[in-house]
């Protein structure tokens, strides 16, 4: 029953599908390249092949090499990839669920909530209940991020799920939380202020393999559940009424998205502090490359976020030899020009 026309249409779409699959693979390859490069940057002068062999356990290497690559650089590089992927995915889901290109964990106050939790621990409870700061800091950051998401959800429930209200509330919450962080800083002594500032700059220095493993599990679970709702999310992009008409339970979908976002953002920021730019820009890069079919867009955003933070991690150690700059700073410094370039390129193409 298929006419020649239907064949060409289906073929045309299949070509598009393959092109996107190829782009996704290309992103993954670029990420792998960046990851290995991230492992090899440093004063040891190890090449990428030696590093790969060491990391995979193919060669023993001497003790110093093993310590540096496996215990220092590997957690650091892994954490960059995982945090970037988590924030990229969280931002992508938020932008779709809230139908707003400016939505991201950090523009709607979830990251600020994590910062508030962390600064409260730094200033008021350095040794609460015998738990060290190593445990308390991430825990508080996560609890506060989750609480801010719960508050967003609650507002959504009571005011109806009018999207713009949610976004406005998130922005209001961001300002409120920033003011509270300022207040905490104002009351703190100089050393605590320094610690808070260090947190807000974002740093991979607190990375460890256990933490990377925990984040990897959370990322995998969230990505799996997100992909199960890929078509529902895709249809939400055509419009809220259109999605409802197709039987998508929009309110419930939005709640589930915020739940995943709070998990991803809470855990990721708990370990590395504020890395604000990724969640906003990762999805935009993925959208420019892959479009908005969420079967491609969601993994693409995760990969783009991971690639960005991995590149930032390389730059954070490569810009000033011997100095490790806070990765949150570098992300913005590397990411902004890249992003502006992409926007300009798209603007020129659209203009033609």
């Amino acid at each position, binding site marked *: 029953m298929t006419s020649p026309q239907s064949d060409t*249409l*289906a073929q*045309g779409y299949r070509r598009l599908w393959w092109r996107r699959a190829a782009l996704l693979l290309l992103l993954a390859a670029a990420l792998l390249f960046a990851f290995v490069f991230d492992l090899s940057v440093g004063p040891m002068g190890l090449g990428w092949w030696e590093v790969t062999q060491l990391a995979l356990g193919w060669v023993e290497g001497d003790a110093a090499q093993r310590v540096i690559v496996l215990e220092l650089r590997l957690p650091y590089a892994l954490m960059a990839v995982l945090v970037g992927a988590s924030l990229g995915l969280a931002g992508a889901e938020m932008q779709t669920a809230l139908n707003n290109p400016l939505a991201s964990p950090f523009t709607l106050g979830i990251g600020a909530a994590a910062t508030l939790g962390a600064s409260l621990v730094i200033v008021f409870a350095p040794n609460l209940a015998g738990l060290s700061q190593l445990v308390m800091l991430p825990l508080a950051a996560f609890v506060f991020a989750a609480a801010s998401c719960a508050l967003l959800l609650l507002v959504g429930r009571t005011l109806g799920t009018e999207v713009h209200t949610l976004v406005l509330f998130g922005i209001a919450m961001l300002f409120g939380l920033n003011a509270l962080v300022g207040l905490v800083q104002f009351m703190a002594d100089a050393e605590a202020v320094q610690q808070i500032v260090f947190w807000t700059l974002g740093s991979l220095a607190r990375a460890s393999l256990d933490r990377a493993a925990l984040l990897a599990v959370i990322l995998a679970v969230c990505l799996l559940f997100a992909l199960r709702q890929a078509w529902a999310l*895709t*249809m939400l992009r055509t419009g809220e009424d259109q999605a*409802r*008409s197709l*039987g998508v339970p929009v309110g419930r979908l939005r709640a589930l998205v915020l739940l995943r976002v709070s998990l991803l953002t809470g855990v990721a920021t708990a370990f590395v502090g504020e890395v604000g730019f990724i969640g906003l820009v990762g999805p935009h890069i993925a959208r420019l490359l892959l479009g908005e079919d969420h079967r491609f867009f969601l993994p693409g955003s995760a990969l783009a976020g991971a690639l960005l933070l991995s590149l930032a991690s390389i730059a954070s150690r490569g810009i000033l030899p011997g100095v490790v700059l806070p990765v949150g700073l570098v992300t913005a410094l590397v990411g902004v020009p890249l992003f502006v370039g992409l926007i300009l390129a798209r603007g020129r193409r659209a203009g033609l």
Partner: protein
Amino acid sequence: MTLQIAKLSSGYRQRSVLQQITLPPIAPGSLVALIGPNGVGKSTLVRSLAGLQPASGQITLDGDALAALSPRERQRRVAYLPQTLPQATSLIVYEMLLGAAYLSGETIQAQITAAIARVADSLGITELMLRRLSELSGGQRQMVGLAQVLVRQAPLLLLDEPTSALDLRWQLNVLEVVRSYVRERQAIALVASHDLNLALRFADQVIMLAPDRDCRMGEPLQVVTPDSLQTCYGVRGRVETCSLGYPVVLVDGVAEQ
């Protein structure tokens, strides 16, 4: 596949819009126009039938009460086209139809592909199918939105002003397509519209909602009369037959109260 509506009431928090609407059974294979002035509840009626608006009363399709169906089953039988156009996003038109087909429970790839091609061909939008929504004009997006509804192959179509952004040629084309869809499948289409001439020309039945909560349904020429134009729309108008035999509504002016 008969649609029956009895004692349907609906509205918003403070304001009831529809009260106890009861209509004669709507036969399969019919295209029904839903007309009435602004704010009278055309969209509310359509949304209540689609299950997107809380409503009381009985709505049965082919003997099954719609309210008793699971959301998934309900949207498989009832396809609703919202009044708002699809958003101008970077989604590709083909993906939009593909998603609609998947979410309606169709799983066989070849059938989906064939259905998409058929719908695109009938609406004449095949060349738009691989473009982004953001590249399309408002009218083109409206056509694409309708394609998304048709590809679901539901037995009840609820179309809220499907021709509001279209030029003359596409208005006719869209209603032709909807009419042949309804005839071929013995489906029912309920089309809310402001265009009385299109309604007179294409509809088998017309439902007219009036501001005084009066609601009547019948043959187009029995419902659209100078009298009902006066009471319902508040205009002085005539219904005449043009030289080709189509009934035409002519409006002479605003009625004095």
